[in-house]
């Protein structure tokens, strides 16, 4: 490679480097940050208007909508906009958001630390000698004070601000004072924005390690690490194996007010790893052990139905988990038999004007409305109490015992502690940055005709009007403490 080629290559690389630097600088501009947030906002809101898979009541409804709107559905489904919150475009903008956040944080960390820790004293106190020339500066006049006492006066002014918990720096032999209130406020910016990164990392950890599934157990039934029994909702992408877990439902106590469930206590015996313990799980209060939580989210009843021949020999039977609370109808079939048993349940039976109903949702006087069908043919229909038989086809169907079943949501995930820490960090950052804005007061003490004069001025973040009022009050207090007089037209 000759020199000319080398030079060209060098200049090309330099130009490329400059372009990258320019793009990077552009990328971390506030306008870009706001633009990215605005696009994310639009994407999030569009999920409320573009039909989302998750918002259809059933997959059949979703399919029906697709067939009714073939063109629109093809576009939406093709771009995966029917799952907008995990669509590629949303992921892209979320990635841009976090990259922008990192770029801005990298840019702002040194500057913020310098401001909070007042590292560059020279820069912080630069231009102090011109305070008296600044528009809005307040003057306090000390007539008759020897001109050489300006340093003493400045010392008293410094003590005044220190006493009121301001951070103070002096320069020019102590005659210039820089007082800062809430100097750590800029750190709030770092805390708040860094909390997003912490939430991102812990959120990813939660998503990738999350196992969730529902597990239906009837009172007295034993579950022990039989993963096949779960209806899996989320499969973990990492750490796929679950710790040993055993659950026995010992008792279920629901409470109702009208048709509304007001309490649910599920007493459990749990075996987690090598530990066995009793616990009570409630709605809103899952049982937690390590990364596992066990949350009851639905209950129903499991009656013991027995089918006998007329002579008394048992044909079939078992506990059947039914979803019949609150007046719903459900059905079951005995294995290898053609009969479908459809049931309505009245937990606290009452007959009003010949119409069966239930006084409460609590099981006080249980009655089933039983309908037995073979194909479309109804073989039996009637109301049955515990111990009463429904007779059809030479058989007798009875229910003798009622138990509850509980559907648990079992979740295993890691990363929840850092996620909570992210919330706390974010809230702390917001409060620190926005409720305690940084205020700066600059003071210069000098000589004047027949005495000394103190000039003060300053600035406050976010709320300049309130700061001017505070500055005027501080000036009045300072004049009062030091025995000076506010300059003309500068009363608090």
């Amino acid at each position, binding site marked *: 490679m000759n020199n000319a080629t080398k030079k060209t290559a060098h200049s090309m690389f330099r130009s490329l480097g400059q372009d990258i630097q320019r793009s990077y600088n552009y990328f971390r501009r*506030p*306008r870009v*940050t*706001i633009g990215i*947030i*605005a696009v*994310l*906002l639009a994407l*999030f*809101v569009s*999920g*409320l208007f573009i039909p989302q898979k*998750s*918002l259809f*009541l059933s997959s059949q409804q979703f399919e029906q909508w697709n067939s009714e709107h073939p063109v629109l559905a093809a576009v939406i489904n093709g771009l995966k906009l029917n799952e907008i*919150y995990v669509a590629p475009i949303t992921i892209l903008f979320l990635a841009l958001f976090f990259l922008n956040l990192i770029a801005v944080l990298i840019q702002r960390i040194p500057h913020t630390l310098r401001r909070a820790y007042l590292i560059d004293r020279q820069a912080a106190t630069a231009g102090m000698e011109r305070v008296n020339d600044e528009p809005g500066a307040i003057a306090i006049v000390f007539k008759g004070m020897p001109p050489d006492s300006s340093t003493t006066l400045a010392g008293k002014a410094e003590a005044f601000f220190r006493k009121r918990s301001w951070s103070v720096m002096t320069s020019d032999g102590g005659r210039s004072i820089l007082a800062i209130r809430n100097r750590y406020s800029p750190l709030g910016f770092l805390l708040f924005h860094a909390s997003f990164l912490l939430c991102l990392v812990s959120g990813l950890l*939660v998503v990738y390690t999350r196992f*969730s599934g529902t597990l239906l157990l009837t009172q007295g039934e034993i579950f022990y690490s039989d993963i096949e029994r779960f209806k899996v909702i989320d499969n973990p992408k990492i750490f796929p194996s679950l710790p040993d877990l055993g659950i026995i439902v010992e008792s279920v106590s629901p*409470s109702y*007010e*009208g*048709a*509304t*469930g*007001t*309490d*649910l206590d599920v007493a459990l015996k749990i075996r987690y790893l090598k530990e066995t313990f009793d616990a009570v799980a*409630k*709605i*809103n*209060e*899952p049982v937690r052990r390590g990364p596992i*939580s066990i*949350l009851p*989210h639905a209950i129903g009843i499991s009656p013991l139905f027995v089918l006998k021949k007329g002579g008394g020999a048992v044909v079939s039977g078992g506990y059947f988990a039914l979803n019949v609370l*609150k*007046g*719903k109808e459900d059905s079951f079939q005995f294995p290898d038999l053609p009969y479908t048993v459809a049931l309505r349940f009245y937990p606290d039976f009452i007959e009003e004007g010949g119409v069966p109903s239930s006084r409460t949702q609590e099981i006080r006087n249980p009655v089933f409305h039983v309908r037995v069908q073979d194909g479309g043919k109804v073989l039996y229909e009637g109301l049955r109490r515990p111990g009463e038989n429904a007779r059809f086809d030479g058989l007798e169907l009875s229910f003798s015992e009622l138990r509850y079943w509980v559907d648990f*949501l079992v*979740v295993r995930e890691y990363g*929840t502690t850092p*996620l*909570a820490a992210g*919330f706390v960090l*974010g*809230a702390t950052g*917001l*409060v620190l940055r*926005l*409720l305690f804005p940084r205020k700066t007061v600059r003071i210069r003490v000098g000589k004047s005709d027949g005495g000394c004069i103190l000039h003060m001025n300053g600035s406050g973040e*976010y*709320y*300049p*009007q*309130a700061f001017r009022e505070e500055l005027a009050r501080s000036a009045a207090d300072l004049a009062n403490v030091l025995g000076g007089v506010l300059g003309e037209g500068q009363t608090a």
Partner: protein
Amino acid sequence: MSWVESILAWGIIYLYTICSILLLTAFIFQKDRLFRWVRLLLVPAFAAHAAEFIARWVRTGYFPANGEFENALSGGLFAILLTLGVLYRRRELAGIAVVTVPVTLLFLGYGIMKNPAALPHAASLKSSWLVIHVLFAQLAFGAYLVASGMGAVYLLKDNKVRQGAASAFFDKLPRLPVLEELMFKFVIYGFIADAIMIAAGSIWAKDLWGSYWAWDPVEVWSLASWLVYGISIHLKVQLGWKGRQLAWIYLFAIIGIIIAYWGVDFFVKNSQHIFGVRPPS
């Protein structure tokens, strides 16, 4: 609803109605002396409102946030409390009530017509996180509503200033920079309360539904509304937006909050967030 609660509820509604009429009249006909009456009436109205809130809490035994009426009751309470707080500090700012009082009145009216009876306290609502979540939600709503009221007052005053028309009525309002700063303060207050509300809500969701975030429509609206206010803060702090631009944003941004709190259930039937008790199917 007990007869005491009934009397209090209708008393509040009538007092807020009178205040709303006075406020509208004051603005339209520029009669600032009517603000004095608003200040006088708003204190007993708020006292009755607080008494109703406490009476409901004592009778039911839970924080009133169950159903439209209770949500209007607690949301309005904070909006009026913040309004009175502003009026106590700056009497000349009575005009902000032109947004906060009528909006509170409309929500209370809607709540009382829908169903003012105390609903059963569903198991899903028995959580300490609910109180934190709802308390901060209502604080945020109150603060944003006050900011919205200030936005309206800012724009009205700014219009007069731009027209160059002298108006004793508008001259008595604080200077525009002061209004702008106060407006921003309430947005900051609301923004922080909103952030805590979202965090507390997601912690509650983990206990109730098993996951922190599920992109439920109410969650999405809340996040979107919070982002709108977040963008407005960036626009002011980073890009120097001020005055009318911000006032317009704050005047309309409240719509997102209202939709998140009261509107989603109208349009989406399978949101997990039911503000009350789901009727039996």
